[in-house]
């Protein structure tokens, strides 16, 4: 019986070999070849030049992830405390934005954040900009919000927040209430219940939330191009530029992708290890 069922895995294993593993092998091959096909390490020897881009991407993605967690966790927690009707509506409302393409939502942010955009027009009409100028002695026509790293982080938080909320919520909602009651009975106050019981038990949700926000944030290129103005590239821009953008060099692009992939995977593995240990410690 067992063995029979395991045969179901065979088609997908073949599929994975073809469309998951083979493409990644292609990236590795490209990363180690020169433009005319020979083996080379040149693509990696210049990687130091791009350290700034790596640093910037990981920094922005990290900030975005932290903000998502800071917003997402309380929201998930509060949602789980509400009645089932409210929860149902809230879930729908969180999933729904994903149905409007993220490029369009990001574009919408452009018209909000532009120098002459909605927010600045609002600030101007309520006199906030002139007030600011009077207080700080500046001569601003507008608050520069577009084309800044802040705008890029905003775009990341905005687009990936649901990916933080959903997994955390789905873990919290399944928490065994008797554990919380037990902790209460044993004399824990609500802060302690949260810190010693709820938080550790929701760790798996937090971990997958972090992964689902951090990975796309590191590698996005549309968001940074639209909100960041393209003057300060992040990894996604750099890779896209080498493949389909203005500086055709797929070998270098593959090498950068490979390095990024390795760093991300190492981060995730370390984090998951750390997470697993934590979980077990609590369970014991």
């Amino acid at each position, binding site marked *: *019986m067992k063995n029979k*069922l*395991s045969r*179901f*895995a065979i*088609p*997908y294993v073949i599929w*994975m070999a073809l*469309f*998951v*593993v083979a*493409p*990644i092998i292609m*990236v590795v091959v490209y990363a180690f070849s020169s433009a005319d096909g020979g083996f080379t390490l040149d693509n990696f020897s210049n990687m130091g*030049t791009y350290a700034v881009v790596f640093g910037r991407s990981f920094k922005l993605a990290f900030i975005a992830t932290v903000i998502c967690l800071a*917003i997402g966790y309380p929201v998930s927690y509060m949602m789980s405390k509400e009645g089932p009707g409210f929860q149902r*509506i*809230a879930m*729908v*409302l969180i*999933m729904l*934005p*994903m*149905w*409007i*393409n*993220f*490029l*369009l939502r990001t*574009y*919408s942010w452009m*018209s*909000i954040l*532009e*120098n002459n*955009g909605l927010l600045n*027009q609002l600030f101007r009409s309520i006199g906030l900009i002139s007030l600011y100028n009077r207080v700080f002695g500046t001569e601003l026509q507008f608050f*520069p919000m*577009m084309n800044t790293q802040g705008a890029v982080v905003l775009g990341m938080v905005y687009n990936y*927040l*649901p990916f933080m909320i959903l997994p955390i919520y789905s873990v919290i909602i399944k928490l065994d209430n008797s554990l919380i009651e037990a902790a209460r009975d044993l004399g824990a106050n609500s802060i302690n219940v949260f810190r010693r019981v709820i938080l550790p038990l929701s760790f798996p949700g937090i971990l997958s939330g972090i992964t*689902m926000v951090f990975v*796309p944030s590191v*590698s996005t290129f549309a968001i940074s191009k*639209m909100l960041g*103005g393209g*003057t300060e*590239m992040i990894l996604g821009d750099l*890779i896209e530029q080498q*493949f*389909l*953008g*203005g*500086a*055709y060099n797929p070998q270098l692009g*593959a090498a950068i*992708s490979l390095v*990024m992939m390795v760093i*991300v995977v190492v981060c*995730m593995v370390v984090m998951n290890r750390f997470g697993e240990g934590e979980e077990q410690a609590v369970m014991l």
Partner: protein
Amino acid sequence: MKKGNFVFNRVFTVLVFLFLYAPILLLIVFSFNKGNSNIVWSGFSLDWYRKLFSDRLIMQSVYTTLLVSLLATAIATFAGTFAAIGFHALRRRSRNVLTTVNNIPMMNADIVTGVAMCLFFVAFFGLWTDFAVWFNGIQDVIELPTRLTLGFGTLLIAHVSFNIPYVILSVSPKLRQMDKNLVDAAMDLGCTWMQAFWKVILPEIKPGIISGALTAFTMSVDDFIISYFTAGSSSSTLAMTIYGMTKKRVTPEINAISTLLFFTVLLLLVIVNVREARLERLGKQQPAVRRSPTVEKLSAALSTPRGKWVRWGGTASLACIFVAAVALLTGATNAQPVVNVCSWGEYIDESLITQFEEETGIIVNYQTAESNEALYSLLKSGAGDYDVVTPSDYMISQLIEEDMLEELDYSNIPNFQLIDDRFKNLPYDPENKYTVPYAWGTVGIIYNTTMIEEPITSWSAMFDTQYAGNVLMFRNSRDAMATALLYLGYSLNTTDEGELREAFQLLADAKKNGVYQSFVMDEIYQKLEGGNAAIGAYYAGDYLTMLENNEDLAFVVPEEGSNWFMDAMCVLKDAPHKAEAEAWINFIASTDASLANMDYIWYASPNKEALEQYPAYYEEEYDEPLDPEIYEIMAAPAEVLDQCEAYLVLPAETRRLYNTLWTELGI
């Protein structure tokens, strides 16, 4: 204290939802706007909804998106469910290995997945061509196609690949929660394992399957990056269409289609949830009636021996429908002649496409690339598989040099006669074997006269710190470097490394000092028209388009001289639709099409008659004479052209230097 907490919680949640919905609300509101702005409200209208349904480009991409998402979800849900069951039945060690591999697409950045797939497909197509040629050579019973390209098939494969992990992820926990003894018990009671699967496993994991399918569908619809790398030139998802538009102005038609999609999904989710809620309430009252009687009857029918046939019949007919749908789809696209065209954004009067389609019955897949360099990347990587492209002079030389263009059969393009002789046999194609000119113009500086008081006359404005934060620079290496080279007084075509590095340094310093607000291509429309930036270097024709929307803009060809360019249509080597491509080129080169096009894109046509007749055409169309100044900006007179230099193709070594410097500038 408790009360305060509660209020705080609610306020916080409401704020988060406000944050999530503010931009969406904006989109919805402006889909009813009369004007085409996303900022200025000019009255209520349903125009954009009406226009939407006649916009073939958008409707086609909506159709592609829905089709690929539905098919990918169906396949992924089916395959993923079985894979999850298979994984579950494996021994721990092999299961862990496979689960890790399964997680790769989720752990991996989308861009790496997309790039990897693109590289893989292109490599596979290369191998396939060799194989097919060999195979067709040794026998003549079956004729294999020798040329495979990225398209709907690869798009579908990519979507299935990134969807399956989500299905597995949501089915696996349900399998783990399932009591293992259930299956054994069922089999002890005489079930075959097939029956055990249908009657025991499936009902247990159904919620997981449904949520997996939903997630997969949502991911498919929202995906952009992976599609971008795997869809090729013939199919375009809504996300890709939108991405093409976000570079210039997004037409409010997109707002309209998004609003429609949004409310459809909202409605669906509401229905599903109301039903679930009702079922749950019913379930609480009388736990037995969880399934409706019809379902009960159906499952009873399915469990009888005859039911087996019903089941198999059902599965088989579903499979047939699926295959038929795919066949129909590919058949439908094959039946009609097509031509795949790639040009620049805002570079054609789109009614010409419709007109051509009506006249000839050839469907035009019209796509845009961002710059010559980006087009080159698209062609080289195999991601762009076009018939006709419209590169600029220097890029044409490079494509000819690399043997990427097909010689044209000019007997199929009689309208080539109409091209002004001064635009024939230009240096990029000295014997005129490959190209038919499309449009020409000059590069200059566009500035907003309300923001910049003194008239701008020199390229120095592009590097001047007094304009810090207000300048838009080209996002392509050749044009950006040209602004610096011109300012320094060097030739646009210099190969001297010292001069190039000096120009690069000028750009890099200006960037470091915050002169540039952003590096743009067609985003410049939105930024200059809206008064979001004061100065930008761009093309004369596009300036005139912007002028229609913002009268405060001025254009100057700086005193140091500038670049004049010619964009010409050419056919790519081994293009599958060469005859259609030549028909298209001939159509566009005609005087009528040239006039209509000129009127729309504001670039000068190389068609002699059209260029001469344009002022009269304008007067007839708009009942007012064409401002001679505007005509001179569009079709620069000889004394301006004398100051300008055309780009020539650079030697490979210099091109590499350009790429390196350009990448460095971006950092």
